[in-house]
């Protein structure tokens, strides 16, 4: 099913905001969204969350005969899948251009950069080698799939352990994880992809575009780099003309971002290793936040607080001194029955019985606090005309 098209107003709004250096979620031009990396109970399973974009990658291995042209090297196979779970625009069996682009870029980034030592994957030269298969599934599409996929793939590869093998002549015995500890892959470096989106004929650029920004962008530049400042792959799509100094500037920004992300991956791997050694609980079940009704968990929303202090002091200075402290302030509480001053509620409705303990509690707690209800079935008249709160009269 096709995605709902972007309206003209939204498009204009996004472009105008970008001209004023403002982004929809309040980020700066070179800011990444929150990256969260979690590992599963199996070795080689990793979920990466880049803001709302979620990508799962799973690494598995198998003993196979090697390619004829390279008898002493193992095989690494990448597969990225876009399921309709990620976005209504992805159809189940359609080979879209985006899918091909992502697959090719992932292969270029990880295979051509030779980040994995394929010679160490050889078991019996010419006969048996390890085939490492990396499956990347996109769980939710909120922009910048390539970055999330590359982080997920390299984290999963670094996390993965393959079974130990013993060679006797031409016999190969594979040990299960209980018999012998599995061995991790030998990875030379971690190439990470950084995406730059260009707008308005290349005059404005944004790092890590979200889905809305991707819809209005003119072109995309993807630079895959490792923390040693080596560029592994660079690709520009969308047909925009880029100047030399723009590309150089992007590569400098990319090197900064890649070192941050590599540090994050290493920290996540260390944490996972530590928890497994100590025997604690690990896996996805532990890292998902508990969704209970009593807990209210939200991500921290960025609020512009630059001149809060001045504005607050201004408001304070401007307002007049408040009237004398009122003995019985008027509290508006919904769902409670009316409590008059000294009056007993004579309506005799069912709700009163349940509210009475609460009513008396309120009275005990607040002293002479008058509680006004918002219930539609009672006539409420406020006796206290000079109360600072707004007047509320509701009639049946």
């Amino acid at each position, binding site marked *: 099913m*096709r995605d709902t*098209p972007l309206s003209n107003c939204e498009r204009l709004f996004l472009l105008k905001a970008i001209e004023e250096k403002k982004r929809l979620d309040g980020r700066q031009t070179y800011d990444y969204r929150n990256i969260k990396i979690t590992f599963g109970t199996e070795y080689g399973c990793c979920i990466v969350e880049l803001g709302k974009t979620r990508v799962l990658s799973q690494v598995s291995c198998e003993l196979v005969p090697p390619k004829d042209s390279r008898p002493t090297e193992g095989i690494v196979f990448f597969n990225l899948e876009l399921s309709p779970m990620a976005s209504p625009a992805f159809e189940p069996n359609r080979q879209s251009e985006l899918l091909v682009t992502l697959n090719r870029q992932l292969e270029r980034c990880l295979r051509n950069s030779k980040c994995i030592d394929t010679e160490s994957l050889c078991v019996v030269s010419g006969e048996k080698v390890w085939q490492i298969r990396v499956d990347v599934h996109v769980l939710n599409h909120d922009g910048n799939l390539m970055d999330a996929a590359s982080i997920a793939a390299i984290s999963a590869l670094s996390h993965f352990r393959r079974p130990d093998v013993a060679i006797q002549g031409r016999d190969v015995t594979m040990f299960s994880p209980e018999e012998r500890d599995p061995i991790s892959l030998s990875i030379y470096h971690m190439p990470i992809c950084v995406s730059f989106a260009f707008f308005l004929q290349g005059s404005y650029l944004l790092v890590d575009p979200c889905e809305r920004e991707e819809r209005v962008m003119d072109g995309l530049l993807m630079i895959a780099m490792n923390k040693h400042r080596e560029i592994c792959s660079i690709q520009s799509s969308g047909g925009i003309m880029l100047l030399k100094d723009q590309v150089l500037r992007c590569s400098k920004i990319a090197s900064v971002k890649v070192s941050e992300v590599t540090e994050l991956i290493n920290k996540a791997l260390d944490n996972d290793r530590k928890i497994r050694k100590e025997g604690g609980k690990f896996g996805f079940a532990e890292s998902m936040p508990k969704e209970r009704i009593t807990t209210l968990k939200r991500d921290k929303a960025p*609020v*512009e607080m630059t001149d809060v202090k001045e504005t607050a002091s201004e408001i304070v200075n401007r307002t007049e001194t408040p009237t004398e402290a009122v003995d019985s302030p008027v509290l508006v509480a*919904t769902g409670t029955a009316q409590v008059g001053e000294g009056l007993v509620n004579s309506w005799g409705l069912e709700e009163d019985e349940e509210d009475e303990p609460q009513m008396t509690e309120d009275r005990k707690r607040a002293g002479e606090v008058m509680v006004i209800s918002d*219930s*539609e*079935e009672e006539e409420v008249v406020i006796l206290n005309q000079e109360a600072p709160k707004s007047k509320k009269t509701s009639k049946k």
Partner: protein
Amino acid sequence: MAVDMRLPTVHKHISLASQSHLDSKHLVVPGDVITSDTGFMRGHGTYMDEERLTASVAGEVERVNKLICVKPLKTRYNGEVGDVIVGRITEVQQKRWKVETNSRLDSVLLLSSVNLPGGELRRRSAEDELAMRDYLQEGDLISAEVQSVFSDGALSLHTRSLKYGKLGQGVLVLVSPSLVKRQKTHFHNLPCGASIILGNNGYVWLYPTPGHQDEEAGGYYTSMEPVSLSDREVISRLRNCLLALSAHKVLLYDTSVLYCYESSLTHQIKDILKPEIMEQIILETRQRLVEHEG
């Protein structure tokens, strides 16, 4: 910049007389067995599973004599001939436009089904085909009527009346198509000072009431004059009311929208979006609607 903070409140739901008949509604989810009786004909939203009639969508079971169908609560728009829709042009093709109408397939607006600007009646020539983009471009909003339904479910639209055509300045609100009540007319000039088009496909268009109709317009003249602040406030308030009504699954028609607007006048426009105030307003609206019917 001031920050608005509110604590969550506990609400006591007061049941209205109108909601007691909810118990008599037969609600189903996909996979629920509706009946094991084989004497019924199966309609939309059902399928036969080992001689038992099972629901394939989540909604309410409707029975007309021997026909059982399930009307889903949230669904893509299924077009009927004669429906008024509000849609957005997505493509300009040879001799037709593709219109996005929140249905499973994009709807089609043929060049021969629109009024030419100036209102003349003649055969569409090759020049008309080349000038299609001058009439309607990608991203434009139009109001149209469903002329017919193709065999695959795609709709064929027409704007062969002066009240249909390109929409100018206004606000679009997207709601679920099942919430828009089928009525005689979907174009209303509300007494509060704005006009509304309730598209059957769930797209509701709010716009300032036009001053006087331009006869030669032919549906393409869109006034770009600035809209006054009072009109804009009315439209913003209506938009928030529509969001409140759709969040509480109230059927949308001119009376319900009007009652909601009047109930909301005591609050500020931006306060209508707060959940607790939304509940208050909807409660009042529901009460008034019950009185109005009863």
